[in-house]
């Protein structure tokens, strides 16, 4: 008996896996090195960066608090409305797509594929791009912002809702079917109680993201506080910009606290 059988060297990964990993690491390092070497950075701009930063903060101080009631409050409320209404609209449009994307509810591979394609295309376009498109269609203003938030959120809500539907247990649904329940009853009493916690979690999470995103939509003219920021920046009124940044920060933190609170209450 030879010892070849026990002398064999043990390795954790197959040669194919090792080669793939090496290719990945090599590709990563290569990408970083090439990017660092070819990216166009103008060094002259860097020499006075600290002065520019100091200048920026000097211009931002003192924060123009007195401007809040006249110029910021309404824009801030509009931002919140855009985020909330956009999210509600998105949920209504995402529910049917989520139902179509879930294989256990729609046992048709083509319909699943179609719904998933719609959801992916909604997600791969950034909300600022959606805002650009809707500004061109509806003109500048809150309507464009609401539609942008809605269309960007459909993919997010629909994907997660569809996945939650696919994870439901078939037991209660079979029981309802056996009792002769019609399709709406099966959905409301069989699927809905199982996905309700996930649904609210998704909706709240998306609302939180929408609040952050709706603050910048105004940069392309889609309403909300971003428009006020853009106007103040174009006029170099940095003390007003500082006020708006503080306002956005406060709202974002408040939204996060609210979401955490509601989540604890209802989930």
């Amino acid at each position, binding site marked *: 008996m030879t010892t070849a059988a026990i002398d064999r060297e043990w390795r954790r990964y197959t040669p194919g896996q090792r080669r793939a990993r090496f290719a990945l690491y090599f590709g990563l390092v290569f990408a*970083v090195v090439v*990017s660092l070497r070819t990216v166009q*950075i103008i060094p002259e701009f*860097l020499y006075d960066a600290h002065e520019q930063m100091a200048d920026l903060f000097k211009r931002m101080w003192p924060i123009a608090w007195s401007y809040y009631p006249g110029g910021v409050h309404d824009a801030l409320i509009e931002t919140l409305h855009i985020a909330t*209404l956009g999210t509600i609209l998105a949920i209504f449009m995402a529910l049917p797509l989520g139902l179509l994307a879930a294989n256990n509810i729609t046992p048709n591979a083509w319909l699943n594929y179609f719904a998933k394609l719609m959801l992916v295309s909604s997600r791969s376009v*950034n909300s600022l791009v959606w805002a650009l498109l809707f500004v061109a*269609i509806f003109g500048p203003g*809150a309507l464009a912002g609401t539609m942008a938030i809605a269309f960007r959120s459909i993919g997010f809500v629909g994907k997660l809702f569809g996945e939650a539907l696919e994870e439901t247990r078939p037991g209660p649904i079979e029981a309802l079917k056996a009792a002769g329940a019609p399709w709406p009853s099966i959905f409301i009493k069989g699927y809905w109680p199982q996905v309700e916690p996930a649904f609210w979690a998704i909706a709240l999470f998306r609302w939180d993201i929408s609040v952050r995103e709706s603050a910048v939509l105004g*940069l392309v003219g889609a309403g909300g506080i971003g428009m006020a920021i853009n106007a103040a*920046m174009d006029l170099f009124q940095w003390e007003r910009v500082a006020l708006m940044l503080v306002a956005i920060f406060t709202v974002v933190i408040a939204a996060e606290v609210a979401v955490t609170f509601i989540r604890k209450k209802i989930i």
Partner: protein
Amino acid sequence: MSPNQIAQARPPAFLPNWPARFAWLALAAYTVYATSILNVTWDRFVLGLGNGVRFIGRMLPPDTAADKMALMARGLYETVEIAVIASALGILLSLPIGLFAARNLMPPWITWPMRLFIALCRSFHQVIIAILFVKAVGFGALAGILALTVASIGFIAKLFAEAIEEISLKQVEAIRATGASFMNVISYGVMPQVLNRFVGFATYQFDSNLRNSTMVGIVGAGGIGGTMFAAFQKFDYDYLLTILLAIIAMIMVSEALQNWIKKLYQ
């Protein structure tokens, strides 16, 4: 007991949930109210649909003139550069920051400033951070890189710190009991437990950076966004469509790569 009495004793199977019904009603009332506040009227919507048809008509066919394609290729290349460098920097910086923000390994006097810093990085949208960096370091890719680095720290460091807070401390204890130095405790007790999740956060953040680096150009921070916004403002909608299609294609390639990496690490 007669069947009738049994039916009375048992509560009905599907009780109406009054608080939930009121919540739905309130939500509906809010929708109506907000719609009226935002001046969203049916007329405007119908008018918009007509505009939309004209808009799409002007987008087609996509503009593929050679000079514009070259401009777009340059913009896309810069976008990828920004995403790659920002992700690399963000990942490198997130490792120590996340570690220092983990409350089960570090004393409170160091976790609190770190957690505050992470919260600050997270609370502003990338485009707003980009505005500040454009002012600080001028127009161009550097501002975009710095803005996305800050955003990456806000995301990766937060999730990394949370992942570390969930680890089992038994292994850390065991390594400590051997008299290992602090760095050894980190690299043999902590990192093996969280590395997998860290890779997951990092790939997700790279994907997110790629999407957002197409946007920071709108405020002058480099990448394809500047070209795209210029095309939009010049009503050059057919070129806009070309750029949009290119961005979507780029993101789909990136998602395919991400899936491949995920499979590699399963």
